[in-house]
C-alpha cells in the first residue's frame, strides 16, 4: 500500500490548488516506528508530508465532526463507512467532503509486532505482503497477515463505499470470513463465566477515554460520563462505573460501528474493547440484516421503525 502515497499527494495537491477543498485530512510520518500522525494540509506545497502505509489505523472520519469547510479526506473502507454514517446523522454534508478512497489491505497491529520480538523495535519496513522488523541487534521478516489488527484480519469491506476519487483499483473482497467467532465463544459461556470474562476484560481500564475519543461515532457535545445533573456514572476506577461506561458506550454505537478498530488501537493498556461492540454488531446483522455505513440511501434500523422489525421481545 505504500505505493498509494504518491497518488494521495497528487490528488491532494490538485484539489487544493483548484479550490475543490480548503484542506486535506491525511497522515504524516510519525516519530516512532509503526505510527503515523493525522494531519491537516492546507497549503498545496505541503502535500509532500502526506504518507500512506499500513500504520494508518486511526479513523480520520473522527476529525470531520464540526467542520464547516470543504475538506478532502483519505479514507479506507471502514473510514468511508463512518463518513456515510456522519452524513446520515447530519454531522457533515456530502458536498463538504471529497473522499480520497483507499482500497485497504489491512493495518499492522504494533502490539502484535512488538510482542513477537525480544528487544525494542527501531524500524519497520513494509515490503509487499511481508513486513521487515528491525531492532538494535536483530532483524526478522514476517507475513503481514500474521500481524494485522484483529479487525483487519476479519474485514469484509476493504474498499471505500463512497469516494470522489480512488487511489487504486479496488482490492479483492475477502470471502468466507467468520467475523463473529470470538463473540460466539463468549455467548456460549454460562452467565457467571461471562461476567468474569467481561470483568477481566476491563480490569485494566484507566478511564482515559482514548477509545471513546478515537471513535468517530462518539461526538456528543457532552458525553454521558461527563453529565452532572444528574450524574449517571462515577468518575473513579470503581469497576461498576468502568463497566457502565463501556457497556453504555457500546450500546450508543450499536448499529453504527464499522469495526474500524481505532478504539483498540488507541487504548494505552491494550484492552480489547471491540468485544463489546462486536456483539452488538452481530445482533444488528441477525435481527435487522444491517451493516453500518454501506449506503447513504437507507436509514439505520435503530433510527427507523419498520413493521417487520423483530418484536418477540415485546411481551
Amino acid at each position, binding site marked *: 500500500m505504500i505505493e498509494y502515497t504518491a497518488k494521495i499527494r497528487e490528488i491532494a495537491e490538485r484539489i487544493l490548488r483548484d479550490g475543490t477543498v480548503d484542506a486535506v485530512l491525511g497522515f504524516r510520518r*510519525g*516519530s*516512532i516506528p509503526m*505510527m*503515523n*500522525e*493525522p*494531519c*491537516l494540509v492546507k497549503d498545496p506545497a505541503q502535500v509532500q508530508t502526506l504518507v500512506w502505509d499500513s500504520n494508518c489505523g*486511526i479513523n480520520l472520519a*473522527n*476529525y470531520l465532526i464540526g467542520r464547516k469547510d470543504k475538506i478532502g479526506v483519505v479514507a479506507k473502507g471502514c473510514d468511508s463507512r463512518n463518513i456515510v454514517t456522519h452524513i446520515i446523522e447530519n454531522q457533515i454534508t456530502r458536498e463538504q467532503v471529497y473522499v480520497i478512497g483507499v482500497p485497504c489491505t489491512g493495518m499492522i497491529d504494533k*502490539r502484535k509486532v*512488538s*510482542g513477537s520480538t525480544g*528487544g*525494542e523495535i*527501531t524500524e519497520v519496513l513494509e515490503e509487499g505482503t511481508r513486513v521487515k522488523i528491525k531492532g538494535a541487534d536483530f532483524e526478522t521478516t514476517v507475513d503481514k497477515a500474521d500481524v494485522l489488527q484483529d479487525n483487519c484480519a476479519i474485514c469484509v469491506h476493504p474498499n471505500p463505499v463512497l469516494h470522489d476519487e480512488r487511489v487504486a483499483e479496488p482490492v479483492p473482497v475477502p470471502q468466507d470470513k467468520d467475523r463473529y467467532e470470538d463473540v460466539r465463544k463468549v455467548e456460549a459461556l454460562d452467565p457467571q463465566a461471562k461476567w468474569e470474562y467481561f470483568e477481566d476484560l476491563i480490569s*485494566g481500564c*484507566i*478511564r*482515559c*477515554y*482514548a477509545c*471513546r*475519543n*478515537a471513535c468517530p461515532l462518539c461526538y456528543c457535545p457532552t458525553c454521558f460520563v*461527563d453529565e452532572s445533573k444528574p450524574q449517571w456514572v*462515577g*468518575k*473513579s*476506577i*470503581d469497576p461498576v462505573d468502568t463497566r457502565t461506561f463501556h457497556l453504555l458506550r457500546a450500546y450508543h454505537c450499536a448499529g453504527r460501528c464499522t469495526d474500524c478498530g*481505532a478504539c483498540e*488501537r*488507541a487504548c*494505552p*493498556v*491494550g484492552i480489547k474493547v471491540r468485544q463489546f461492540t462486536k456483539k452488538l454488531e452481530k445482533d444488528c446483522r441477525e435481527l435487522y440484516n444491517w451493516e453500518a455505513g454501506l449506503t447513504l440511501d437507507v436509514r439505520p434500523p435503530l433510527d427507523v421503525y419498520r413493521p417487520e422489525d423483530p418484536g418477540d421481545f415485546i411481551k
Partner: protein
Amino acid sequence: MDGGKVMRIIRIEKDDWVTGLGRLSDSVRLCGPVKTGDFHHFKQLPKGVVPDLEYRNTRLSPKSLVYPQSEAMLEYTLDTRQPDHHIHKEIAKDFSPQALLGIRPCDAKAFLLVRRNFDTPQYKDTYWIRRYETTTFVGLACDRPCTTCFCTTAGSGPHGEEGCDVLLVRQEDGFLAKVLTPKGEALMETAKWQTEAESGAPATLESLKKDAEGKIVSHVQTEKLRQKETLELYEAPFWQDVAFSCINCGTCTYLCPTCWCFDIQDEVYGLQGMRMRNWDSCMYPLFTLHGSGHNPRPEKMQRVRQRFMHKLKYYVDRYENGIQCVGCGRCIQHCPVNIDIRKVCDLMNGFEPGACAT
C-alpha cells in the same frame, strides 16, 4: 532527598536478593514490576513474589503507588438520626511502610517534581505526603534505554540518583547497590544486605553509567525555555499544527509520572457517602468548565497548548528548576496519534517571535 551523597556501596548476590526480600516483606509492603499480559505494571507484590526486573519500563508510571488513581479522602453520613450527620470526617488510612523495588530513575525523580506541588509552605497534601514519606524508593539503573528515552536532557539519567533511597545496578550475579539516604540504609539493614562492595566498585559503576548515558539517543533542548516570554510562546503559530491530531484523551496525562492533576467528587450510596479524588486530565473539556457554562479552554488546541506550556514553561518559571518532565517516553510511545513531546519541546525552545514563518 539529596542524591549526591553515596553512603555505601553494597554487593547483593542473586540468592541474597530473594532472601533479603523475604526479610523485608515481614515489615514492609513490597511493590515492584509484575508482568500482566503484554506489559509490566508496578504493583503490590503478594508475599513470596519477586519483582520481575526484566523490563524496560512499566506501561503506567508507578505514581499510583504513592498517589492512587482513585482515593477516598473523607467520609460522612447523611442519616439525620446520627449525631454527626453531614459532618465530614477523616477516613482511616493505611500509610504503613512500603518499598518500591526496581523503579526506574526517571520515575523516582518524577516524585520529587510532583512533591513540589503537594508539599508547599502554605498547604500540605496529607495523603500524598504521608504515603511518600513512608515509601522507600529502590531504583534500578537502566542499562538498555529505549530510543524514546530522553532522561539525560530532562533532568534525570539512566543511573540518576535523585529521588532514590537506594540505586541498584545490575551485575551478572546480582546487583551493586548504592545506598543514598538513611531510609535506604534502614532498608538495607532490614534485608540484611550488608556486604560492602569491593574497592573497584565505584569505578565499575561510573563506567556503567557512562555506557548507559551514551546509549541515550533522544535529546531535547530546554536551555532557552526560561528566558522565553510566556505570552509570545503562547501565541506562537505552531500550536494549531501540533494540536490538530490530538483526540483529547487522557493517555498522556495518566501514563505520565509527573502529571498530578485531580478531581474531587462526592459519591453517595444510600445514606453513606465519601469524598474522593480521582486523577483528572487537562485534556478533557470539562476540566476548566465554569458553572456558568463559560470555558476558558473550549478548543482542543488550547488544551494541548496548556499541557505543553505547563510542563515546559509555566512549571519552569514557577520553580526555576527545569522542566516538568523526566524523559520517560511513555507519552511518546502510547499517544494514539503520535504527538511527540520532544518535537514540541524543541519547537518551544527554538521559537523566535517575528522569525520567518514557514
